[in-house]
C-alpha cells in the first residue's frame, strides 16, 4: 500500500489548497526565521510573533518592512505610507499568484490595522527620525 504524506499530497495537488491555508509570523523560538531582528517584517519586536508575515500563503513581509521604513523617514506622509502599503500588498500578492479576492482581503486587513493602530507608531517613528 502506498503511503501518503503532506509533501506527496502537495506534489499531487500542486500546493494550491495547502498554500491557501498558510498563516505564519515568520518567527520561531523568539527569533525571525529569515535571520533578521524581530520587527523586521509585520509587527513590532513585541508583536512579531503574533502578526502574520504570511497570509493565505502570500508573503507580505516586504510590504510591511517598507511601510515601517516609510514611517521612520522624517517628513514622510502617513497617508502615503499607508496607501503604499495597500498598493504594495495588492501587487506583491498578485505577483505571488494570489487571486483578486485573496489579495484584496489581505490588503484590506492590513490597511484597516494601520489606520486603527498606526498613529502612535507613526508619531514615535517620526520623533526618532526627525532630530
Amino acid at each position, binding site marked *: 500500500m502506498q503511503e501518503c504524506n503532506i509533501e506527496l499530497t502537495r506534489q499531487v495537488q500542486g500546493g494550491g489548497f495547502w*498554500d491557501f491555508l*498558510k498563516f*505564519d509570523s*515568520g518567527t520561531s523560538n523568539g*527569533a*525571525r*526565521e*529569515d*535571520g*533578521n*531582528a*524581530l*520587527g*523586521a517584517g509585520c509587527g*513590532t*519586536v*513585541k*508583536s512579531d510573533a503574533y502578526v502574520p508575515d*504570511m497570509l493565505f*500563503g502570500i*508573503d507580505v*513581509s*516586504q510590504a510591511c*518592512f*517598507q511601510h*515601517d*521604513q*516609510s514611517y*521612520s*523617514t*522624517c*517628513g*514622510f506622509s502617513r497617508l502615503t505610507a499607508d496607501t*503604499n502599503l495597500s*498598493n*504594495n500588498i495588492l*501587487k*506583491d500578492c498578485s*505577483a*505571488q499568484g494570489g487571486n483578486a479576492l485573496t489579495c484584496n482581503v489581505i490588503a484590506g486587513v492590513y490597511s484597516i490595522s494601520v489606520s486603527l*493602530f*498606526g498613529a*502612535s*507608531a507613526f508619531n*514615535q*517613528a517620526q520623533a*526618532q*527620525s526627525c*532630530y
Partner: protein
Amino acid sequence: MNRLHTYRKLFGSLGLGLGLLFSSGCATEYFVDKGHVDGVGGISFDIKPPYLNEKKAFNLRVENLSPWQLQQISDAMPFIAAFTNAQLGNGISTALLPASDTKVRNIRHIQNLSADTFLAVKTIQNWQITAQQIEFNIDYFYTGQDGHFVYFRDNYIFNKNKQKWVFEKHAKTEPEGVLACEKNPKGWRVCAPLNRAKAN
C-alpha cells in the same frame, strides 16, 4: 437563551481584554517599536534608534558566525546602519545625494530612481570578517514602475579606523545587481542575483 448568555460572556470578556490592553499602556508596547537589545550567540546587539530599521535588517542568525565575528559586527552596527540610511537617500533632495563619481556607488543613480521612489533595505548579510575589515552585502528594494518590488544587491567593505568603522571600498568592481526572487517550499521569498538564478 443559553447561547445568548454565552455570546454576552464572550463579547464581555473580549471588551474587557481590549479595555485592559488599551488602558494599561500595553498597546504602546505592541504597536510602537522603541527598540530592544538582541542577544545572538552570547553577543548583545543594540537594535535601537537611530536607524532602527536598518539595524533590524542585519542578518545575524543564519550564517553561523562565531562570537568574535558577532562582536565585530556589534561594534560596527551603528556605523553600517548610518551608512545604509544614507545610501537609501529617502527624503533627501537629489542635489544632496553623493555625486556619481564618489567612491560609494549610488543605487538611485545606478537604477535611475526618481527622488519620489522609496528605497528600502531588505537585509544586510553575507558577512566576511577579519580583525580590521568587514565585508558584506546590502539587499535593497523598491517599487518598480510596474508596481512590483525590485530587489538590488551591492557589496561593501568597511575598515576599522580609530575605533570607528568606515566605508573603505566596494568588494567587487560591480554590484551583484537586480535579484531574482522565488518562493521556497515554506512559501518565503528567497532572492539570488539574476545571473546566478539564470545559471541555476
